[in-house]
């Protein structure tokens, strides 16, 4: 660039350039101070203004800068990436304290307590048995599609629960036994299994909700069932519809509420490619863990009642048929409806016997 003493440059050109500089200077001076940085938004303008004033009155005081740092607000950086413009995030410490603290301790021990309680109940009362002998006449309780969606959801649930426990509690439970290398292998299988099975479970949750919602509406007699705890302590059968109040609680509180909560929070964690912030994922993780612990606790109850807790219950979902005695003793109102022909097609007594005849218990 030509210097100002360049003999070629005319006096007029020099004058024009000086004028341009003056005009530019005047224009810049007239602009508000905070407008000098195009990177600042309206929120940051106030703090920038404060910082500017600070520089005039207390040139050695960096307090506004450190307030900015502590705020966790996005700043300016040249490095691209997820939240690279946040210098320090305080939420991680809260998440760590909750996850490693309350959630892991209370959640983990609550599951153990439920397991012990169920085992104690089984040893104390044993399974719920039928009071009358089986008739040998079968009633169709579940259609093949209902069995299919139930067992698909159940498989997904169990896989998610086991892999979730490995990832959540394996560090304190399995790692000391298996050692770092072997446990890491296990976790490297568990993580993708959990992440790919999660969406399967979410889809199942939607389907299973619509499959069973009709028979799960709350009825007046369900409160009676609740008050008598389903006769599980007294041994007297409490009448119920196709599903008793316990099953309905599991349906609304477990399948629907907890299912939606774990699925939604799981999606936030599973699909991290939508630029959600760390804070979002921290809270999603806490909600996911807490809901999953409750889900597993309730699931243990459901699995117990569906297998060893009640004679005949497992055969119902396995074969789709139940004995008339079982239906009468455990689901009297449903049985009466079936007998009176008042029920929908799903429960009409089938003319053909199940392929696999359930063995009398």
């Amino acid at each position, binding site marked *: 660039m030509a210097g100002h003493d360049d003999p070629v440059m005319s006096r007029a050109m020099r004058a024009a350039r000086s004028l341009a500089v003056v005009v530019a200077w005047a224009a810049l001076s007239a602009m508000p101070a905070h407008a000098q940085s195009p990177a600042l938004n309206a929120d940051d303008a106030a703090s920038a203004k404060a910082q500017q004033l600070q520089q005039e009155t207390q040139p050695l005081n960096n*307090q506004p800068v450190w307030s900015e740092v502590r705020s966790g607000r996005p700043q300016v950086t040249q490095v691209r990436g997820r939240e690279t413009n946040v210098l320090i995030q305080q939420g991680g410490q809260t998440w*760590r304290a909750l996850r490693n603290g309350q959630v892991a301790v209370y959640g983990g021990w609550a599951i153990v307590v439920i397991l012990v309680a169920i085992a104690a109940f089984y040893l104390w009362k044993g399974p719920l048995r039928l009071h009358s002998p089986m008739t040998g006449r079968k009633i169709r309780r579940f259609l093949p599609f209902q069995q299919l969606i139930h067992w698909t959801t159940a498989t997904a649930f169990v896989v998610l629960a086991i892999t979730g426990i490995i990832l959540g509690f394996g560090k304190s439970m399995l790692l000391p036994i298996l050692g770092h290398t072997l446990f890491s292998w296990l976790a490297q299988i568990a993580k993708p299994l959990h992440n790919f099975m999660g969406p399967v479970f979410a889809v199942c949750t939607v389907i299973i909700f619509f499959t069973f919602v009709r028979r799960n509406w709350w009825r007046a007699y369900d409160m009676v069932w609740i008050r008598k705890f389903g006769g599980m302590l007294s041994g007297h059968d409490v009448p119920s519809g196709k599903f008793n109040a316990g099953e309905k609680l599991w349906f609304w509180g477990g399948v629907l509420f907890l299912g939606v909560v774990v699925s939604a929070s799981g999606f936030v964690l599973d699909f991290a490619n939508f630029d959600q912030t760390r804070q979002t994922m921290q809270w999603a993780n806490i909600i996911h863990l807490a809901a999953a612990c409750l889900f597993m606790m309730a699931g243990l109850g459901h699995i117990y009642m569906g297998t060893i807790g009640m004679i005949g219950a497992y055969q119902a979902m396995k074969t789709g048929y139940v004995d008339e005695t079982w239906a009468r003793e455990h689901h009297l109102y449903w049985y009466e409806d079936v007998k009176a022909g008042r029920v929908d097609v799903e429960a009409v007594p089938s003319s053909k016997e199940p392929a696999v005849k359930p063995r009398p218990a």
Partner: protein
Amino acid sequence: MARMKFLCDAERCIECNGCVTACKQEHEIPWGVNRRRVVTMNDGVPGERSISVACMHCSDAPCMAVCPVDCFYKTDQGVVLHDKDMCIGCGYCFYACPFGAPQFPQLGAFGVRGKMDKCTFCAGGPEPDGSAAEFEKYGRNRLSEGKLPVCAEMCSTKALLAGDGDVLADIYRDRVLRRGKGAEVWGWATAYKAPAGGNGAPRPAGATPAPSAGPAAPQGGKS
């Protein structure tokens, strides 16, 4: 035994990103991963400050505490390292880290992230020092060669210091005494609070000419 720390002098950092570049170059870090970054506060207004940040190798490291497979370990110099062979890419360290240090080569659907990558304080990983396997996974192991981290070595204004925490504190104290300002040591209270060595943030009492008249002290050291 030295306790390795990073210290970034906000009065000196000029946001040249030389440390970022030096780190990428030294360790041949792939695209999309930056072990170090420079963040500028109040960009473009008088009194703007920049800070270079990477893994601070915390005393009570949150990443170590939340890792579900316990792949982190701490060297006898206080450097927090991890074993990429064990890492399952769950991202928990990324949630927990206050400094945003853990990086992932991918961020795909279904939580596919690849193995976590972060600053190693130029100290490599669990593989033998200076081995090809170590270089490929963790970058160069300069500490084993008797060298300090390349980011600090390359820093043109010596804003970024790396090395024994006691030495850094002495250097910084001397700077503060000479210039009479900028006593805030960013990140030390978060990273090194109540460490085993009892080496807190150097806050030389009376070194600053008490610039803030109010009762509120500068908060930098606490951030």
